């Protein structure tokens, strides 16, 4: 009998295809929106998590400029940059620090033959790749002699390689950065977008000395990346680094820091938090549209019950009981909304896949979300189908048969 009821429902749905399509549209849109939101949200969360893991949870960033209150450089005018000596001091004097790397950055145009692209140039040394745990795809890192003498060698990020060389190997080729011609010795592994959405592979790295002399023309180190030894407290390291830097930068007691130390772990968890809140909010909006879809189903089912009053009368006349009529309409509503849910899931996943691709985050479809959305749409069918079905079942046979 339940199979009969189901067959009847499907028949009724396809007897009026246009109306059925319009009826489920609300559900389709609602489910698709929820699925797309949650899937994208999960994708970006997992991206952030992956970033944290990649970066290591023990990386600190030391930057000039106070962290508190009025932006910019503490009490004095402009915060001083760091120097290579600061890097050495941190490594030598703070026991819990594994290693540290200088970092300076500038944007410029790169030319290779007829190809050219603009990218970000990073001055650093091999320790940087260790701190942020960034392996090479091919070639080699800088030689100690190259770092010391400031030779014109560079390591490319994957995006720059694609822009200038396509898929061919760039190792040994010469590129031009403004007036500087340098030889490519290595290629970094592709890293993808950062948690902030920027393309981390759009980069060329030079030895710090080369960068200082040939690109910016000063000896500033604008940032220091520090990795703390495994098992050592990053909080303690931060306190020690702060003390050391205050001393080195001659900040008197009572004066604010003119530098700040960022803990990547904190940044990452903050980002995850923001992502979750956003996902939650958008999903709530999407859920409201699901609700509206449900009301749409109820509306059409009510119209349908009125339209089919005679049909109901006929069914009652040949011996249908109230419950069977109720089931017929209820199953019809549920089948409709489940069809809507199914189409919505497919559409939502497709949207999420496209969106993930555009946002350069992983596409992480979740079985729980899909099954949940399906059950939810079935529930919408039951809840919003019940009232019209009840009305159909309560009809008096002779009144229903007389209905014109």
């Amino acid at each position, binding site marked *: 009998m339940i199979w009969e009821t189901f067959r009847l429902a499907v028949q009724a749905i396809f007897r009026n295809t246009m109306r059925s399509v319009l009826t489920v549209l609300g559900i389709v849109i609602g489910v698709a929106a929820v699925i797309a939101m949650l899937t994208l949200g999960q994708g970006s969360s997992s991206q952030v998590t992956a970033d944290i893991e990649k970066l290591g949870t023990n990386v600190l960033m030391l930057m000039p400029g106070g962290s508190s209150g009025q932006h910019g450089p503490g009490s004095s005018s402009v915060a001083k940059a760091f120097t290579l000596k600061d890097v050495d001091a941190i490594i030598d004097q703070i026991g819990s620090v594994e290693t540290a790397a200088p970092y300076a950055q500038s944007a410029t145009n790169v030319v290779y033959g007829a190809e050219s692209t603009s990218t970000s140039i990073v001055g650093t040394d091999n320790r940087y790749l260790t701190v942020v745990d960034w392996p090479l795809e091919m070639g080699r890192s800088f030689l100690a002699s190259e770092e010391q003498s400031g030779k014109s060698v560079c390591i490319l990020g994957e995006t720059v390689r694609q822009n200038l060389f396509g898929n061919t190997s760039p190792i040994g080729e010469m590129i031009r950065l403004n007036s500087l011609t340098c030889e490519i010795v290595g290629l970094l592994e592709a890293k993808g977008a950062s948690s902030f959405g920027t393309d981390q592979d759009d980069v060329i790295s030079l030895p710090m000395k080369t960068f200082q002399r040939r690109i910016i023309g000063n000896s500033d180190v604008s940032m220091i990346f520090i990795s703390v030894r495994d098992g050592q407290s990053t909080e303690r390291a931060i306190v020690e680094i702060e003390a050391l830097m205050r001393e080195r930068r001659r900040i008197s007691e009572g004066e604010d820091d003119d530098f700040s130390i960022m803990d990547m772990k904190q940044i990452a968890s903050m980002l995850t938090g923001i992502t979750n809140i956003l996902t939650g909010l958008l999903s709530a909006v999407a859920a409201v549209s699901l609700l509206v879809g449900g009301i749409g189903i109820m509306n059409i089912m009510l119209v349908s019950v009125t339209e089919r009053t005679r*049909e109901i*009368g006929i069914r*009652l*006349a*040949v*011996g249908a*009981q109230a419950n069977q009529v109720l089931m017929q309409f209820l199953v019809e509503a549920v089948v409709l909304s489940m069809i809507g849910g199914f189409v919505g899931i497919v559409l939502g996943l497709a949207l999420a896949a496209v969106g993930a691709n555009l946002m350069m985050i992983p596409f992480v479809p979740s079985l729980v979300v899909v099954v949940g959305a399906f059950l939810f749409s079935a529930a919408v069918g039951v809840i919003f189908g019940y009232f019209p079905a009840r009305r159909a079942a309560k009809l008096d046979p002779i009144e229903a048969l007389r209905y014109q």
Partner: protein
Amino acid sequence: MNPESALIEFRDIAKIYGHGEAEVRALDGVDLKIEAGEFVAIMGPSGSGKSTAMNLIGCLDSPTSGDYLFNGVHVASLNQDQRALLRRNYLGFVFQGYNLLARTSALDNVELPLIYKGVARAERRQRALEVLAKVGLQGREHHDPSELSGGQQQRVAIARALVGSPEVILADEPTGNLDTQMSREIMEVLKELNEEDGMTIVMVTHEEDMAEYAHRLIWMVDGKVERDGNPVRGGSRR
């Protein structure tokens, strides 16, 4: 079946529509007994209450006053679901206006009562095809009502009433839209069901020729039974 009581018994049944000025006494104190196996024709002028009586017999409607006993059971004491079971298992209705499901093939229309009887699909199909053949609708099984003539629709309605092999067939002008030839064929079918299967048949008709197939004629006027007896002209008065 209960041998003590009649299959259908009306005791002083009245059916009143509207109030006050607009009051219509569709049935006005009808006493009636129909035994199992009878073939009864009901005749009377338009508006005399024939369809109203049929709807009451078919447990589709309830009287304003009086008692209706079906097989000795007070129908008023049954709830909607029990009445549905009564219709499902004992009654086959042919409506004056056919009442077929729109956009549904003749075959599916005829199968409908069997669905609620819980008959398996294959058997349902076979029985529906049989009765459709009986009423002369071979080759029209897959047509929708909108693709059938009035007479053909009427025959689908008759097939639907027959298909569940009910105890009683209630036919409200089953031949109203058929030519004489077809009408006779339908009457032969009803006659056969009555004589061979012992089915009770109550039929409303406007045609004396058709009424002559019945064994008993009830003549109604203004909601009352005026004559009840032999169907030949001038049948005995009560």
